């Protein structure tokens, strides 16, 4: 009894400054509530967050759009001249969009093509492999926690470290060629072959990010009630049908999250590829973000306006893709409710 009252008193003592603070805050908030009304208080509480969002997201977005309408090599807006949609026109000047070399900005269209194929292949493979891994890790394996950690470990690495590790493995005098040489196989220049390099960037990015998506899918799998599987087993349902009829539909919300995240991340691919291949050989692994970076910041006579225009287009593509996926998700939810 005495212990409880002592704890209570100690708790009251510790909470006293908090209570005092709340009372002080209460005074202006009541005044605000009188003006804004109870309904308006939600907006008041959201305001600080919206302010940060506005300063760090919306404002740069607007400034970026303004940049895309200006020309010259200067960085300060005051030193740049307004040229309207000329940068966009330059990006779209093409006789055949499927042949980048027929375009004025051939590097942009090469990057668009590379990014398109990268996104298609990488996202499909990533989701497939993440799902298979999650299904395996969801079973009663020996040392299951160890395997989960093994698959998640690359996610913890910095993209630059990922790029460097794989560069040391794949370069001419790298670990892979050393291993092949031990088996009497002639070493190969993996990072100077256009096709192999493209495959390498897909493989490395899957290796680096798969752990996160596996974890999300694993969480989804563990949330599926076990009795559904038990009922299916009692009915003698085949495993493939169980997967199609129980696992996949119940995993759909998690899969949607994974698809959205993987897609956005794939379109934005930059750091590990920049370290691993530098966009080469030639431009075979030049992706959109690298094109934007090099056009705006790294090339001789930088063109921030052109880079801004390309990034606005990339942003639009991402918004459209996300909206399509959210639409598909909402349709799925409605179907589920029916």
């Amino acid at each position: 009894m005495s212990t409880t009252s002592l704890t209570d008193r100690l708790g009251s003592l510790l909470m006293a400054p908090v209570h005092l603070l709340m009372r002080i805050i209460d005074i202006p908030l009541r005044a605000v509530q009188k003006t804004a009304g109870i309904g308006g208080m939600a907006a008041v509480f959201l305001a600080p967050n919206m302010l940060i969002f506005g300063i760090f997201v919306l404002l740069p977005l607007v400034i970026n759009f303004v940049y895309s309408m200006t020309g010259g090599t200067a960085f300060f807006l005051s030193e740049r001249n307004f040229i309207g949609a000329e940068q966009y026109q330059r990006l779209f000047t093409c006789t055949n969009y499927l042949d980048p070399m027929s375009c004025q900005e051939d590097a942009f269209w090469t990057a668009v093509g590379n990014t398109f194929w990268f996104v298609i292949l990488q996202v499909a493979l990533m989701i497939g492999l993440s799902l298979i891994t999650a299904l395996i890790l969801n079973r009663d394996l020996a040392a299951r926690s160890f395997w989960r950690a093994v698959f998640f470990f690359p996610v913890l690495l910095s993209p630059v470290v990922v790029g460097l590790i794989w560069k040391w493995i794949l370069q001419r005098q790298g670990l892979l060629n050393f291993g092949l040489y031990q088996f009497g196989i002639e070493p190969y220049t993996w990072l100077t072959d256009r096709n192999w390099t493209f495959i390498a960037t897909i493989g490395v990015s899957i290796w680096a990010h798969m752990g996160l998506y596996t974890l999300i899918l694993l969480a989804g799998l563990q949330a599926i009630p076990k009795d559904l599987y038990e009922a299916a087993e009692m009915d003698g349902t085949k495993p493939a049908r169980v997967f199609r009829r129980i696992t996949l539909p119940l995993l759909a919300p998690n899969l949607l999250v994974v698809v959205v995240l993987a897609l956005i991340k794939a379109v934005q691919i930059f750091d590990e590829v920049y370290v691993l291949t530098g966009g080469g050989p030639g431009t075979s692994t030049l992706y959109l973000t690298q094109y934007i970076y090099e056009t705006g910041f790294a090339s001789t006579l930088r063109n921030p306006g052109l880079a801004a225009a390309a990034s606005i287009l990339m942003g639009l593509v991402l918004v459209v893709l996300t909206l399509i996926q959210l639409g598909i998700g909402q349709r799925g939810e409605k179907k589920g409710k029916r």
Partner: protein
Amino acid sequence: MKTKSLLAGAALALLMSTAAHAGDVRIMWYSDGVEGDVMKDLVGRFMKENPGINVILDNVAYSVIKDQLPVQLEAANGPDIARVTAIKDLSRHWLDLRPLVKDAKYWDDNFGAQADWMRPDGSKQISGFMTQITLTGGYANKTLFDQAGVPLPGPKATWEEWAAASKKVKDSQKLPFAMAIDRSGHRLTAPLLSYGANYVGKDGKPAPLDKGAKDFLTKFVGWVGEGSFAKDVWVSAAGSTYRAAAEDFINGQLAFYYSGSWQVANLTTKIGNSFDWVATGSPCGPAACTGMPGGAALVAVKYTKNPKDVAAVMDWFAQEKIVKEFSERTLFLPGHKGVVDKGGLDFKTDNAFAKAALTKYVEASKTTADTALKLPGWRWSDTVYAAVVTRVGQTLAGELKLDDAFTRIDADIAQKVKDSGL
């Protein structure tokens, strides 16, 4: 009374912190060889002699100087002093030290020959001084040539003769490649000029690629195709990204490596006694046997908050005795007329190859073509270099045909000139 004391204390702290910042001079520095260590030592000595100025030496990678510093400068930021190679291209960002240095005549007399390289066209400002004068040139792995029984081509040997001899060494010694040249427009310009190329048009702006340039580029692409020249270094990046092939030479994987005088200290340190090497100068073409001059300059940045302290630092490092010591310890060719005229540089190395290489570069500088001497001070050099590297890289990767590459190089340069608004 208590409030007054608190306010006074706060004001004093503020004043003290401001005073500490007033004497700060930040130098952004990169190293090819041992010059970072030498500079660190010299900075220490400067601060002992000038206790009121705190010099902060930021040793960064060359890519930071090449890619990040220009962006900082465009945003009116950056260090107070920087060691740079794009000295003309960025010249609008340099501080005019003329009214700030102790003796402007000393600067004009000793650094005047390269002053135009680092100031805007038509200006008379003193922007800084060359920490080293460089010249592009070749290095041969003499041990590999000897083992293959192939004699080293003579001083007037052509690019074709070097390619043929190196190929024999490659085949005999089972090397991955015979020759390599850095992925750099500056490096590639030397053989282009030897083949008679001229980048500068009559109006001072870039001219379309001429026969000389096309001739060497055609040969170069052919040599890479047949495996004489290393492909890796050229296709290992997109765009105008710089890549050096020094590591392949150091690892004994190349018979011939074309780079420049700044590699002497690097090769001396890293090769040691592993094999014998010689500097060969620049192979000849039909028009000349020229290397490309250049170098790195220490320049003051005009966005500095402490111009007087910056000038004091620059004055100290530009002293004849300091330039001489820096050159001797780094194995760099000095850009100070007094030091060059007096001669007697005692390069601090016991390595016979390094000493011979430095002598070779001094000799080779006498055959530098006039066009080559003008290019470091030409506004559009870096623009041409970037376009050539980008498109040749794509050609070597199999993305472009050579004729298309030529068309693209001309178009890229024309577009950049248009973008600049000049």
